[in-house]
């Protein structure tokens, strides 16, 4: 079907630059908010998805869904430590790390207030079963001493977390002896120390979980069965990666808030687009009549005005996406609903998310343009000419 040239729409948009700018800004703002909030949720999700080693198994108390609510006694620990099928290091020690997590309150660096930070007490194999974690400065903490290593992200966000600094937590004073990086995983939101020192400082006579490395996939199944079927243990075993994937529900509230905010704002933006297009139809009624006299059919007029609305919202969407791009990779933190501690992560703006932002923008353009375009197409020729 022959159509009205695009240049007609583009130039008409340019002529009405004030209303054009207002609409483009409105749509752009909605898309920017949408992309930013969704990138926040994605960053948070990615943090959990990237955490854990697929070879590792995590042991929790049966019925516990998180390390924070799990308790494993020293007797239970002793029953599991030397089970056959657990990988051993060069010195013959089982790759088995009894762990406990506690929350401490730390002041923020260069900002008012503070937040809960997760301290993980771990066994001497804690670092060995986490090969993705690298000490980037200083050294590992020593067993039996009130020392800790801090993730670089936490060190960048909280006071007294640099090497040589110390902070009070529980019954003791902890000295920072090293900084680590953990490939943007959830471990980057933690402080690590010796498990027994943490238990002593915080008055816990139990551990929370055990992280162990089976020799192979086959032995993993055997170890799992052995632990779960031992009535004296009352424990459940899951893959470490599965445990952290499950934590992605932390991103749920953010995702919901992003969707909700974007939905509310998009209604406003769609109305703005509609208003602009009604004004455009009103201002160009005689042009519509002329186009009809020249032989353009109703459908051409309809598509032309709908396209104009889509162009407007498309430009808005593009600007919204561009505005959100500088956030990509920016580190931030939020409250973790499963750990009740600060989780550090990065905004993740992916091409797919930008694509969704653009689709969202175009949808607003179509919704806003439908009725005005219909009105333009339905105008009787004579009435339009007399406008």
């Amino acid at each position, binding site marked *: 079907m022959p*159509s009205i040239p695009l240049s007609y729409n583009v130039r008409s948009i*340019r*002529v009405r630059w004030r209303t054009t700018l207002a609409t483009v800004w409105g749509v752009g703002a909605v898309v920017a908010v949408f992309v930013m909030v969704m990138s926040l949720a994605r960053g948070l999700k990615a943090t959990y998805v990237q955490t854990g080693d697929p070879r590792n198994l995590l042991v929790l108390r049966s019925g516990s869904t998180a390390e924070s609510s799990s308790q494993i006694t020293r007797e239970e620990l002793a029953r599991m430590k030397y089970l056959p099928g657990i990988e051993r290091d060069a010195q013959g020690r089982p790759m088995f790390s009894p762990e406990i997590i506690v929350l401490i309150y730390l002041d923020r660096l260069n900002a008012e207030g503070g937040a809960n930070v997760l301290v993980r007490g771990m066994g001497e194999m804690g670092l060995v079963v986490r090969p993705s974690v690298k000490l980037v400065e200083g050294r590992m903490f020593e067993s039996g001493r009130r020392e800790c290593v801090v993730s670089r992200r936490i060190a960048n966000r909280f006071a007294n977390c640099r090497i040589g600094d110390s902070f009070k937590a529980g019954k003791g004073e902890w000295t920072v002896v090293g900084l680590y990086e953990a490939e943007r995983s959830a471990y980057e939101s933690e402080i690590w120390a010796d498990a027994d020192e943490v238990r002593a400082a915080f008055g816990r006579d139990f551990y929370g979980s055990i992280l162990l490395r089976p020799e192979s996939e086959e032995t993993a199944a055997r170890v799992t069965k052995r632990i779960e079927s031992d009535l004296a243990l009352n424990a459940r075993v899951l893959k470490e990666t599965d445990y952290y994937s499950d934590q992605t529900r932390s991103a749920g509230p953010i995702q919901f808030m992003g969707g909700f905010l974007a939905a509310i704002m998009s209604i406003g933006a769609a109305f703005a687009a509609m208003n602009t297009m009604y004004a455009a139809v009103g201002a160009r009624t*005689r042009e519509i009549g*002329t*186009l009809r*006299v020249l032989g353009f059919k109703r459908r051409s007029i309809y598509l032309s005005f709908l396209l104009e609305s889509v162009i407007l919202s498309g430009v808005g969407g593009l600007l919204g996406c561009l505005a959100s791009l500088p956030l990509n990779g920016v580190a931030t933190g939020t409250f973790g609903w499963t750990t009740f501690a600060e989780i550090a992560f990065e905004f993740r703006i992916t091409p797919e998310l930008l694509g969704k932002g653009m689709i969202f923008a175009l949808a607003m353009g179509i919704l806003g343009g439908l009725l005005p375009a219909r009105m333009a197409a339905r105008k009787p020729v*004579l009435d339009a000419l007399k406008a």
Partner: protein
Amino acid sequence: MQAIVQIRGLCRAYRQGDIEVVALNNISLDIPEGGFTALMGPSGSGKSTLLHIIAGIDRPTSGSCVVRGVNVAELSETELAGWRNSQIGFIFQTFNLIPVLSAFENVEMPLLLTGLSGAERRAHVEAALELVGLQDRMHHLPRQLSGGQEQRVAIARALVTDPTLIVADEPTGNLDARAAADVLELLTVLNRDAGKTIIMVTHDPKAAGFARRMLHLEKGELLRDEEMRGV
């Protein structure tokens, strides 16, 4: 000469609130091919309504309006749009150029519906603009042209598809005397030299004097049908 427009028993009435207004009452006439006809009459006489029905942008209440064998009243909206594009060149009192398009693009608009190639369209547009003496104003926007030039662009747009009929609704109504004379001279040339059939609505006797036939309407009825000598 063979009639290109045959109108029989044409009536057009419309409602204004509870009152029925008769715009055209039982009009019958023939317009020969190659003629230059002026429709005259006071405001509300029905001359513009008659022109609009002939041009296929209004519909009669009853009667028929046959243009080159096609009863315009029987065409659907979609058919009418295509028919107007191929058969009618319309010249408006207010020029009705698209303000954001150049003279060239305005003249090209009706050709976009014809299936001609870009090169063919360009050749047609250039020829039409040359005919109206505006080949050097092709890339000007309407606001960069004088009223007379704008109307000449509109005339180029009306004739670029080589239509059966050129209809003009008060084409000099918004022009000064000099520009009006130029436009009327151009219409005369198109009629005399290019053989175009022209129907022009005017209430200006001077403008009507350029036509070869004058139909005088009043209160929706055809009062007089005069042959003119032209100028």
